[in-house]
Structures are given as structure tokens and as C-alpha cells.
């Protein structure tokens, strides 16, 4: 027998009470895991942004197109290492509610600009560049719809129609793209701009936006000003921003998700702090006499303090770790659900680590008051006469 056994036996003495507390801790940590994962996934684009990347959009709004001529002029500017252009396709699969994030891109330059973001097998890369109707699909999207390389898929647009009147473009999946870090979401598809531009009924020779890598992040500001000055007072003025700033503004359109997440997690933790903290106080108060006996038997005050902190800590871990497991399961099932809102939801190792740190903090906080009162307890008072 050792202290761990004592702690375990203390938790077992009122199994129902311990179980109930563990359940409430479990729920708080499950909420924590899912919500923080959600918040991270919403801000993932911002975190994944490359430091040396700029985004050039129409100054009126990024939904307004740019003439394709802008692209070649931007490419030629000194300080631009690589550039590519992208166009929003407005995709869905079979039914409008199955939204797909699809962009039309220029294959070679796209793969160059995003070489550090995405991982792609050389044969898939070659197949994508070679075949005009080829498409690349991100891992998350492929998982969600069960697609694999070689599949032929009709991708519909809720904006564009083909000259032949069809809304659907048939594409062949050339390969699956993986993100190089967990922050990089892969719920997307890219297809050839040339294929899209030639077949669409309207909007020809326009592009959505330009993405470029600069020779160094230090030239970002100067380059952005140069680009915007180049098109100033033209019919299509540009707004050039770092990818990070652009993505942040994009994410902020939904509202302050981080604040909502912090508030809810705060509420959940405040709840269990109250419940578990007070229950621990009560549980230890009920044990006053036993603590006196332990002291009589030669258990030091520090040892008693450790035993009670150990108990609240063990309870926090007993509830928190399965809670984290539940969060991971929930994250997987939400990612597979039809809502594209959760498509990048992952419980990353750093979230799990934060949660474990919180469990320790939580265990110590809830155990502190009862542990201190046990620490101070006078044997004579605790034994009393009964």
C-alpha cells in the first residue's frame, strides 16, 4: 500500500459522489476540447498564413473580380518571388446544401506558391498539371466524401453556368493534398482556371484574387503599397494585405467567435469549480476525525496536505482525461458531419496538453481549501469526544 492507494480508497468511499463529480469535470473538459478545437479551426487560416505571402483583392471587396491583366503586371514587380491567381467557384456537390470550397487556379504557379503549405505526391502533381479537367482535393474533403484519386466527380457552381447551360463541371481527382502542419485546413478542392474560364458563360478573363510570395517578409509593406499604387485610379483598384491580415478579417466576419468560446468555457469551468470545490470541502469535513487519527498515527501535516491535493488531482484527471477523449470523438464526428463549419475541427496535441495542464490546475485549486483546513486541523479538536 502507498499514498496512491489511500487516495484511491478515499475516492471510492462514496463512489456515487466521486462519479458525479468526475462526470461534471468530464463534461467541462469535453466542452473545452471541442470549443477550443473549433475556435482554433476558425482561426486556423490566420495561424497557417505564411509570413511572406500577400493577397491582392479588388479594393471594393474581395468578392469583386479583378481583370486577369492585373496578374501579369503583379508578377513582373520586383520583390515578387512567385505569384498565382485564384477564382472563387462557389461549389457544391449534387445538392446546393452540400457546399464545397472550390477555387479555380493556375496549376503550376499555384503549387509553387503553396509548396510549403501542402504536401502532394509527385505523380499526383504531374497528373494534376497535365490534365485540363483534373482537380486536387484536400484530405479532409476527400475523407468526408470518400473520394480518392481517379474518381470522376461533377462539381456544381451556384454562381457560374457553362456555355452549354450546365451548372456542373466534371473533374477527375488527380490526387489528395495534405497539410504540412495541423493548422492548415484541407477542406477544399482546386481545379484548372483554364478549363473553368473557357467553359463559363460569363465573367471570362476575370480572376478572384492574386496570391504571391515575396522575396522576404521585410519587403511585404513596401510591395503592397507598390501594387496598390500601380492600380490606383483605375477601374479596378486593388487592396493588398498580408495573408494573415486578410484571413483574420475574413474570419472576423462571422463575429467574435473567440470571445463566445471563452465565455462558454468560462461558464463551464466556473460551474465545476463551484460544484467540485464545495463537494471537496464537504467530503474532507466529513473526514475530520479520520484526519485526526492519521495525524495521531504519525502522518505529517504536509503528508495530509499532499493526500488531499492528490485526491482532488486524481479526480480532475479521472474526469478530465475521458472528457478529452470524448472531445476527440466529438471532433471526429463533427468533422464528418455535413456542416462545413466544422470541417477543420481537430483536437491538436497542444490543445490536449493545455487541457491536461488545466486539469492539474483545477485539481490543485479545488483541493486547496480542504487540504489547507486539514493541514491546520488540530488533532484534539478533530478527535473530540463522541
Amino acid at each position, binding site marked *: 500500500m502507498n499514498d496512491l*492507494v489511500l487516495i484511491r480508497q478515499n475516492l471510492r468511499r462514496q463512489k456515487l459522489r466521486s462519479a458525479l463529480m468526475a462526470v461534471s469535470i468530464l463534461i467541462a473538459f469535453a466542452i473545452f476540447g471541442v470549443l477550443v478545437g473549433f475556435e482554433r479551426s476558425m482561426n486556423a487560416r490566420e495561424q497557417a498564413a505564411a509570413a511572406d505571402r500577400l493577397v491582392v483583392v479588388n479594393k471594393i471587396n474581395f468578392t469583386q473580380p479583378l481583370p486577369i491583366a492585373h496578374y501579369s503586371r503583379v508578377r513582373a514587380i520586383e520583390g515578387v518571388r512567385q505569384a498565382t491567381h485564384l477564382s472563387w467557384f462557389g461549389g457544391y456537390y449534387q445538392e446546393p446544401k452540400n457546399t464545397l470550397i472550390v477555387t479555380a487556379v493556375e496549376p503550376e504557379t499555384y503549387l509553387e506558391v503553396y509548396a510549403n503549405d501542402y504536401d502532394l505526391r509527385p505523380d499526383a502533381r504531374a497528373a494534376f498539371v497535365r490534365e485540363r479537367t483534373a482537380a486536387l482535393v484536400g484530405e479532409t474533403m476527400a475523407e468526408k466524401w470518400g473520394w480518392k484519386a481517379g474518381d470522376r466527380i461533377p462539381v456544381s457552381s451556384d454562381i457560374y453556368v457553362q456555355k452549354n447551360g450546365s451548372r456542373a463541371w466534371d473533374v477527375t481527382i488527380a490526387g489528395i493534398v495534405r497539410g504540412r502542419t495541423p493548422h492548415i485546413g484541407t477542406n477544399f478542392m482546386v481545379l484548372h482556371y483554364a478549363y473553368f474560364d473557357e467553359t463559363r458563360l460569363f465573367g471570362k478573363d476575370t480572376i478572384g484574387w492574386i496570391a504571391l510570395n515575396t522575396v522576404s517578409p521585410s519587403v511585404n509593406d513596401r510591395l503592397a503599397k507598390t501594387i496598390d499604387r500601380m492600380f490606383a485610379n483605375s477601374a479596378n483598384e486593388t487592396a493588398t494585405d498580408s495573408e494573415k491580415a486578410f484571413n483574420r478579417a475574413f474570419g472576423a466576419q462571422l463575429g467574435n467567435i473567440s470571445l463566445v468560446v471563452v465565455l462558454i468555457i468560462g461558464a463551464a469551468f466556473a460551474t465545476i469549480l463551484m460544484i467540485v470545490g464545495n463537494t471537496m470541502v464537504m467530503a474532507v469535513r466529513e473526514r475530520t476525525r479520520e484526519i485526526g487519527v492519521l495525524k*495521531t*498515527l504519525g*502522518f*505529517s*501535516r504536509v503528508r495530509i496536505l499532499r493526500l488531499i491535493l492528490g485526491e482532488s488531482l486524481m479526480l480532475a484527471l479521472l474526469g478530465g482525461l475521458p472528457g478529452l477523449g470524448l472531445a476527440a470523438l466529438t471532433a471526429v464526428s463533427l468533422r464528418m458531419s455535413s456542416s462545413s463549419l466544422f470541417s477543420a475541427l481537430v483536437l491538436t496535441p497542444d490543445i490536449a496538453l493545455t487541457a491536461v495542464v488545466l486539469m492539474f490546475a483545477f485539481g490543485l485549486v479545488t483541493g486547496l481549501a480542504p487540504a489547507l483546513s486539514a493541514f491546520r486541523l488540530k488533532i484534539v479538536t478533530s478527535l473530540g469526544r463522541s
Partner: protein
Amino acid sequence: MPDNTLVRLIDVCKRFNKGSETITIFDRLELSIPAGDFVAVMGPSGSGKTTLLNLLGGIDRADSGEIHIGGIRVDALSESALTRWRGAHVGFIFQFYNLMPMLTAAQNIELPLLTRPGKDRRRHVETALKVVELADRKKHYPREMSGGQQQRVAIARAIVSNPDLLLCDEPTGDLDRATADEILSVLRLLNRDLGKTIVMVTHDAAAARHARRTLHLDKGRFIERDLAA
């Protein structure tokens, strides 16, 4: 002549505050108990019996005076030194056994051994269980045992760390006559065969007869009637 006194109280004073009133329990109490003695302490309620035990066990402190036990001045020890000393030199036996309900008999007995380094914990537990004749119940929880059995476990817990002094607070107060006699025989055996010095507080004269001598405590003073020991 070697001084074989185990317990010596010199000029011990102890007062309690009860509301605005100060109650004096002991005023310059003197006591001396030789090693190997078995003393029963009797007296009416409030005479200071339990306070005496608490002072001897170092779980309460005197307001003044000296308490020497086994050559150590207990009242001068710091809180943590006192805790260590208690774990090594004193065994407690209570009226209501005070076993940990969530631990088995063997685990309860093992508890004092957890407060110090040392091997062979299991062997010590087995030995203690044999002394109290409970080897077959070591896996049982307190709620599965009779009062007498629980008190035997408590006795085993008190002797497992091989202390010199056993302090018993009404050890038979919650037991029927026959069971009480069994428990007292165990205590006598500990005193006679293992040489434990025992101080037992009781208000049961029949229990006190098992001791070598009886001290009567009244209003914080001893009246030694039985000088035969």
C-alpha cells in the same frame, strides 16, 4: 540504580477557555510511570482523563511544565518532530476504534508504517495480525467486522510500529463484557509478553482490574489508592 521511568510529568498545567471562562484541568500535575507498567486511569467525566492521554501522546500541548517520555522532552519538540516521534514511540487505541472505513484490516494496520522508511511492511503487519489473532480477517473491511474485531485491528495498528507506549482511551467502552475481557486480555498479553507500557483511561472498574495499578484522577489530581503494584 538505572532509572527505568518511561513517563514523567513535572509541574504540568493545562487550562481551557470555554467562552469567557477559563477552566483549569491540571494545576502542577506530577506523574511518573515506570517502563513496563500497565496503568488504568479512572475518574469522573471532566476529570482530565482524556486530556492526560492527549498530553502523553503529544497531540495536545501543556501550558507549562515538562513532559518527559523515554528520555525525550516531548513538550519541547516542534510540531513536525512531535509527529515523527509519535509515529515511532506511541500507539493509540480509541473507544470507537477509528479505523479507516475504506481500508481493509491489513491496510489499516499498515498505515503507521507508511510514515517512515522501512522494508518488510507486510511481515510487520502479519506479525501484528497474529498477536491480535486476526490473521484470517486481514482482507476484511471494518464494516464487515464486529466491534471486538475492529478493536483488535486498532490494537494491531497501535503496535505494528513497535512503540514503547500504548495509550488507550476507553478501549472497551463500546463493547460487551465478554468481548471487553478479550480485548483486555490482549492488552495484558502485550504488557506481560512484549513489555509494552500501557496507560488506559476507563471508567469501567472491571476493566481497570486488568491493569497492574489504577490511578484515580479527580479535579486534575491523582489519588493513588492501589499501592500494591
